């Protein structure tokens, strides 16, 4: 028996070591990208100046660029990326399908449609728009789940209904954009492609608060999520309160997605890519919420840097991530079809 225990311990320690190593590496990478976001730009400020501005001093020229433009941009990218990443991971693990994320199942479309409605028709404030987006996101989940339930739940049906809801929301959005008055257009357009442009410091506290509350919640539920991975029945027999856990996880994931989308617009593919990349790096069997969040943050920051500096023209971050995500989505489909997942 002792040798068996040794064997088990070895395996577990190896996996735990890998988790710690990868997560630390991801954290370092993300921190480096954050620094790059602050240092690079039309003018490259020396580290000394950046540090000074962050500490509250006033350096001529640098203060405006860093405090008003780059810092909010970096924080938005960091927190929104983290939020998208962890939300995508939760959906994918719970629905046991790498294609299931808030975007594909139409939740983001519902949030966007509600937000554009608020901006164009109700001319409401930013705060109200965000609240409406979150509410609409949750409502869309309920609708999609209700429609897709049928006699037996099937992930295929969920995806199809999601595609239908997405199409409807997109046509609503197009209509709203058409009747929009000139001055509402820029704010409305923000909801169509993800972008870190023009993010203001005042918008960020809501997102940061949401992350601070919901990310730990998701981590605490991490073990239960792993049990849910084994299927409804097995999870129940292991003592998981499946309904309650599911609801808490879904609500957390949707709220995080919706609030992040309220700040940056729907940044394509991040929710979809972060989970699988994290799992590939860390391995399965562990609660991978934090690595997925870090991958999401790193993706958004790196894509934004690429969009700003890698090409002769500036691309918004949503386009870059969309282009990265598309071939991966196709590759995934090919692989899943080959393995007979559908």
């Amino acid at each position, binding site marked *: 028996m002792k040798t068996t225990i040794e064997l088990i311990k070895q395996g577990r320690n190896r996996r735990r070591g890998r988790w710690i190593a990868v997560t630390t590496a991801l954290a370092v990478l993300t921190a480096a990208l954050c620094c790059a976001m602050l240092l690079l730009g039309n003018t490259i400020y020396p580290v000394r100046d950046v540090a000074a501005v962050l500490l509250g001093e006033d350096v001529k020229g640098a203060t405006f660029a860093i405090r008003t433009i780059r810092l909010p941009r970096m924080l938005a990218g960091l927190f929104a990326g983290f939020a998208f990443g962890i939300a995508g991971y939760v959906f994918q693990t719970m629905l046991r399908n790498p294609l299931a994320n808030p975007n594909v199942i139409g939740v983001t479309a519902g949030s966007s449609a509600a937000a554009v409605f608020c901006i164009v028709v109700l001319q409401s404030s930013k705060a109200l728009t965000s609240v409406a987006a979150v509410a609409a996101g949750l409502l869309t989940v309920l609708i999609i789940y209700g429609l897709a339930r049928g006699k037996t739940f099937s992930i295929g049906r969920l995806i199809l209904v999601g595609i239908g809801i997405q199409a409807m929301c997109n046509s609503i959005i197009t209509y709203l954009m058409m009747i929009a008055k000139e001055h509402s257009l820029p704010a409305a357009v923000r909801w169509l492609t993800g972008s870190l442009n023009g993010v203001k410091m005042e918008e960020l506290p809501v997102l940061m608060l949401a992350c601070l509350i919901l990310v730990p919640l998701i981590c605490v539920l991490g073990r239960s999520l792993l049990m849910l991975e084994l*299927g409804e029945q097995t999870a129940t027999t292991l*003592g998981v309160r499946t309904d309650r856990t599911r609801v808490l996880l879904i609500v957390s994931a949707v709220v995080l997605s919706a609030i992040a989308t309220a700040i940056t617009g729907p940044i394509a593919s991040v929710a979809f890519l972060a989970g699988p990349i994290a799992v590939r790096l860390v391995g399965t069997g562990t609660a991978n919420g934090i690595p997925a969040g870090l991958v999401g943050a790193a993706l958004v920051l790196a894509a934004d840097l690429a969009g700003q500096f890698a090409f002769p023209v500036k691309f918004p971050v949503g386009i870059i991530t969309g282009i990265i995500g598309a071939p991966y989505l196709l590759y995934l489909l090919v692989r899943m079809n080959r393995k007979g997942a559908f």
Partner: protein
Amino acid sequence: MRSHTFEARQVVAGYGDKMILNGISLEIPSNQISVIIGANGCGKSTLLKTLARIIKPASGEVRLDGQPLQAYPSKRLARVVGLLPQSPIVPEGITVADLVGRGRFPHQSLFGTWSKRDYEAVAEAMEIMDIAPLANRHVDELSGGQRQRVWIAMALAQQTDILLLDEPTTFLDITYQIEILDLLTDLNRKYGTTIVMVLHDINLSARYADYIFALREGRLVAEGKPSEVITSQLIKDVFGLDCMVVQDPVSNSPSVVPIGRHHAGGRVLLEASR
């Protein structure tokens, strides 16, 4: 393992609008191996799932130690009753030790750090099911028989007093079937675990069961020791099959010998023996 009273009282249960169990009352004998037999669709799986609290009865109730099942908090129930479901899902890339370790969930705290008892329980379960050397292998690389043993080991690691198994031997070769049933018998004899199984093979059921429950169309038609319950009349009632019941020379339990159209010579013997 401790003894428990575990009973169903006039349970009516099913899926959606369709009721499959039509008022079943029975008591599971403690510390023994019970097997539920019956034709397809008669409610064997449904009964097991209702006992495991996966399905909520439409009327009637299941009682554990005098308390209704619904009254137990999830984790506490999971420490007493364990279920091996019929077609479990294997997440990609999970190792054997990991999967067996998930069985310790009801005993663990929020962050899932493994205690000494956890390691011991997992190791013991893996040794009983003879998969200890496979500890760090990926489950999806294993053969069907090995995989089934991993799932049973997970249920064992849960260290429950009562273990419910829904067709643990389907899709396995006969060698593995016997092996697993022998291992489960070891478990019961050594630790006193109450085992309730659904088996599709009547003869294996008769051989390994201490107690048999026979179901037909959602009702209990017979219960008792195999030697009392397995008669040609019962088999005819429950399965609609003509048969002779002889004594199994290896285990001294009743053995069912079917009489079909092409082997009706037995009918003569049947008439003569009446």
